[in-house]
């Protein structure tokens, strides 16, 4: 059971990494949803015994390589999100979808805020408000991702 769960989680995270690397026309690049963070948050809520802060670190490092950011930028942000979710997942699980989406929005903002802090401190701040553009898109997708992954979990994990 655990092995199957682990494999399902790994596959879904790999698909999320793949989706985030999908080539896009220039104007759409800034609006690409934060697939990896969304899928990570789902598994962190649903299977906290399997997916915790160590997974966050590893996944964040892969994101750093993919985005060519400083090694640790995405990792630190994701570990901090993992810390918050790890303290609140019993409640997050019980929320209705709308409230859950609001909570996810806050988590995503926290994630981007940590990355912003790191980049400002290293002297390479992002330019313009488009930096925040992935948040609304991602939040709109959350209910869909939640229901999809819940069905996947019931079947395979």
């Amino acid at each position, binding site marked *: 059971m655990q092995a199957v769960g682990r494999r399902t989680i790994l596959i879904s995270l790999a698909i999320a990494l793949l989706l985030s690397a999908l*080539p896009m026309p220039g104007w759409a690049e*800034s609006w690409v949803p934060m697939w990896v963070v969304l899928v990570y948050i789902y598994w962190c809520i649903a299977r906290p015994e399997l997916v915790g802060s160590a997974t966050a670190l590893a996944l964040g*490092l892969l994101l*750093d390589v993919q*985005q060519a950011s*400083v090694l640790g930028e995405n990792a630190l942000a994701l570990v901090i999100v993992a810390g918050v979710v*790890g*303290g609140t997942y019993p409640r997050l699980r019980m929320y209705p979808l709308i409230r859950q989406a609001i909570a996810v929005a806050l988590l995503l903002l926290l994630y981007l805020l940590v990355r912003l802090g790191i980049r400002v401190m290293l002297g390479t701040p992002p330019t313009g408000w488009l930096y925040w553009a992935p948040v609304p898109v991602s939040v709109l997708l959350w209910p869909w991702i939640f229901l999809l992954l819940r069905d996947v979990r019931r079947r395979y994990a």
Partner: protein
Amino acid sequence: MMARAGYHRRTLGWALLAVLLIISDHYLGYLAGIRSGLSVLVYPLQVVSGKPVEYLEVVAGYLGSRERLLEKNATLQDQLVTMQVRLQRHASLEEENLRLRELLASSIRLEERVQVAQLVSMDVGPGQHHLVVDQGSRHDVYTGQPLVDAGGVMGQVLHVGPFTSTVLLITDARHALPVVLNRTGVRAVAEGTGSLDRLRLRYIGGNVDVREGELVVSSGLGGKFPQGYPVARVSRVKRNPGGEFIEVEATPVARMERSRKFLLVWHNGHPAADRAGSGQGG
């Protein structure tokens, strides 16, 4: 509750590790090995994610009508002839240039080793522009190596993995490139603005003659980029009376968003530039 406390302690530990990673990557530059190792894991995902676009292009190629293909063939033929004529002139000019340089006892070599690289994936976020190409340390790629496309300079290699490398584009807000105005020989620095069709030319004095549309080429100062590759065309000149410098904007001549094939250039002085130079040089 005990388990929860343990979880938070572990999370704190991982967070500290991440902070250490950031510091050692950014300030000490120790982690090139780790990044290169991880890039092997990310590489297959990047290749797979690029496939749909490739297939679309293949299908579009099949669907393209015969007339259009013939038309395209004709234009390409025309281009080829023009290019060949130009190349003939170029060859004689190059020889003449070499002879003159010999007269001046200068040791600059004009031929450079080049290698075709293909686009694997492109990542254009706000302020951050980079792309991944399918050449890595296995193919002698080195950090700081220039990348050009058919139009001009694209960027320079930022990280090298075994099979791939990440290239920082000249339009990235973190990038600066020493350039020279081709017509007048005035030196400047071309800074990325974070938007794909704009560069800012800094440090051009207030009394300098700059015209819209003139060509900006790499100056070779700083030793990273070879000299004389086209970089951009001046698109806007704004003079502020009394200011020390004028504000000049330029549009890159490389097709930043559309190119899929590039050339990696082994620049003079780099050890790998001499290796197999004649075999792969072009």
